[in-house]
């Protein structure tokens, strides 16, 4: 095991009776990185985290923390701490006692030293002066910080976070998101963060592992995940997408990044082959709305369309374009940034759409598209 790897899972499987919650998962989390596990609810991500924390025992496979196999180490002896989804602050204690709880358990430290460290941790999360408050006297965001301080004060090798921002309102979530990222950068602690919210995962993480039905779909930095999804599921789950289904592959141009042309209702569309595709295969195509360029009027090299809706949304507008040359009704969403030279369109305008071939990703259709993925 490389010493630079803080958490490693090797072929970890967890079964509850007949249900396979986690299916042969392996990954490594480098030291000091912010690692997210992203998946819809029921995908097994919570089980995965609880196995790292020690609350569940893997059915098979090994878990390493800081280079040590921890399968048989109970949770109170593991060099990792967890921030719980519902925070699990101790309501019978004040803020300071919550934060010193772990230090007191560890012992070997004077009371003054414990308090100094606790105050230090509280200062780091911006909660100076609230030491004597009761938990129920704090706001949601403050409670969030206490939960963080309570774990961070123990200087764990790994901090596990079980979607702790989920219960906050949108504004608070946005600011806590950044704060968490800064905190992680400052402390250098390895974070393993699980969430079903892709905006959080993409914004904060160094690496994101997408998990679906107990299996890892892709492990990659956020940008790669966004631009070059490895599977049909990742493409549909991460980010907004135009999803065209049931096309036929017309041509494949092999290379390091194979390029394909797919026929949808008589229209030829270019894209990147996300997986092995052959001429004649059925394929789905995902195109990011912001990657489509829209030119007013009729042009060569592009798909002719007619604007049916314009939805103004502040910094951008979402334009719905019906592809007029298609043999069956087909439309694409296009996101236009409101820059100085942005085209102005109105419903009924004729426009031409085009995109770089590698802005679209083609996959074999999946037998049963995951319903959660379309949320």
């Amino acid at each position, binding site marked *: 095991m490389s010493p630079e790897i803080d958490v490693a899972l090797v072929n970890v499987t967890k079964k509850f009776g007949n249900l396979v919650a986690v299916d042969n998962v392996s990954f490594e989390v480098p030291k000091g990185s912010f690692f997210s596990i992203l998946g819809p609810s029921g995908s097994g991500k919570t089980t995965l985290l609880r196995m790292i924390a020690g609350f569940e025992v893997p059915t098979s496979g090994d878990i390493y923390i800081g280079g040590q196999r921890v399968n048989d180490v109970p*949770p*109170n002896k593991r060099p990792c701490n967890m921030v719980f989804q519902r925070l*699990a602050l101790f309501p019978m*204690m004040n803020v300071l006692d919550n934060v010193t709880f772990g230090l007191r*358990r560890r012992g070997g430290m004077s009371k003054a030293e414990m308090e100094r460290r606790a105050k230090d941790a509280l200062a780091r999360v911006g909660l100076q002066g609230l030491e004597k408050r009761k938990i129920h006297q704090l706001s949601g965001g403050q409670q969030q910080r206490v939960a963080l301080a309570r774990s961070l004060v123990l200087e764990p090798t790994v901090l596990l976070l079980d979607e702790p921002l989920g219960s906050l309102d949108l504004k608070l979530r946005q600011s806590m998101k950044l704060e968490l990222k800064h905190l992680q950068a400052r402390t250098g602690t390895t974070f393993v963060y699980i969430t079903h919210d892709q905006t959080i995962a993409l914004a904060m993480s160094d690496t994101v592992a997408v998990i679906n039905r107990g299996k890892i779909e892709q492990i990659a930095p956020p940008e790669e995940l966004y631009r070059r999804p490895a599977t049909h599921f990742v493409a549909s789950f991460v980010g907004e997408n135009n999803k065209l289904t049931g096309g036929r592959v017309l041509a494949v141009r092999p290379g390091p990044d194979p390029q394909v042309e797919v026929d949808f209702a008589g229209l030829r569309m270019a894209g990147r082959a996300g997986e092995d595709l052959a001429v004649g295969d059925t394929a789905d195509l995902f195109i990011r709305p912001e990657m489509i360029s829209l030119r007013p009027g009729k042009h060569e090299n592009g798909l002719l369309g007619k604007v049916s809706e314009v939805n103004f949304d502040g910094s951008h507008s979402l334009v719905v374009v019906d592809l007029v040359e298609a043999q069956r009704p087909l439309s694409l969403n296009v996101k236009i940034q409101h820059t100085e030279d942005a085209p102005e369109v109105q419903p009924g305008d004729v426009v031409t759409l085009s995109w770089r071939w590698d802005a679209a990703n083609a996959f074999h259709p999946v037998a049963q598209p995951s319903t959660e993925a379309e949320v």
Partner: protein
Amino acid sequence: MNASSKRRGLWLVLIPMLLWIGLLFVLPHVKLFYLSFVSRRGGEFTLANYLYFFKNPLYRRIFVRTAVFSTLVTLLTLVVSFPLAFIITKVAGKRLKAMLLLAVILPYWVSELIQAFTWMVLLRESGVFSYLLQRLGIIHHPVEFLYHDYTIALGLVYTSLLFMTIPIMNSLDTLDDSLIEAAYDLGANFWSTLREIIIPHAAPGIMVGSIMTFMLNLGNYVTVTLLGGKNSLWFTEIIYNQFIIRFNQNKGSAFSVILLTFSVVFVWIVLKVTKQDLSEAM
């Protein structure tokens, strides 16, 4: 008009309860209190009934024995009930939970008298317990388990188990499991989690259960007399003797008031010491 009819409705609902409390609780206590302060013959005001108790070393000793024993049994009941309540609320699966709950409630389908007789069948020298232990080779001749202090304790724990277990279950029910996990995660072991997280959370339930158990023990008569044998004199029997054997309602009332006052004061002190609020606890 609507409000007044609503109010009338409320009173109508309350009447049975007020009658119940008034006739069966307040009125007898007022009478008891009055009787304890008047002389047996003549009926003039006197403190003699109380002085009689305080001057009598035998009664004082029995009173202290009853109080100390009740306290110890309450603690013992807590020790038995707490793990039981914890298992029922936090550990057991659906079926085990139902079984344990039934096991706690079932004894109350028969009277205390029958419970005591059942214990006698089990614990007597020629009883089931003695027989089984002999068969297992643990003891080599019949042993009498009845008529000891520990037999009284056993019987009392049994009769008050439900009243301790249910309130604790009730308070443990509201304990978020993740608090226990969080404590473990932060390095706590079983005992420190119990001491710092679970018990403080369950404190109101423990309080309610202990109060009820203590009162039940203090006022017990049947179990103590039947299982205790020759050394079982309990303060309630002294009260019984005053009313029934000596036909002395006034001393009996005084003794009852003493017992009642003691239990109220004791509970109040315990609440103060443990910084619990009864209304909060309930």
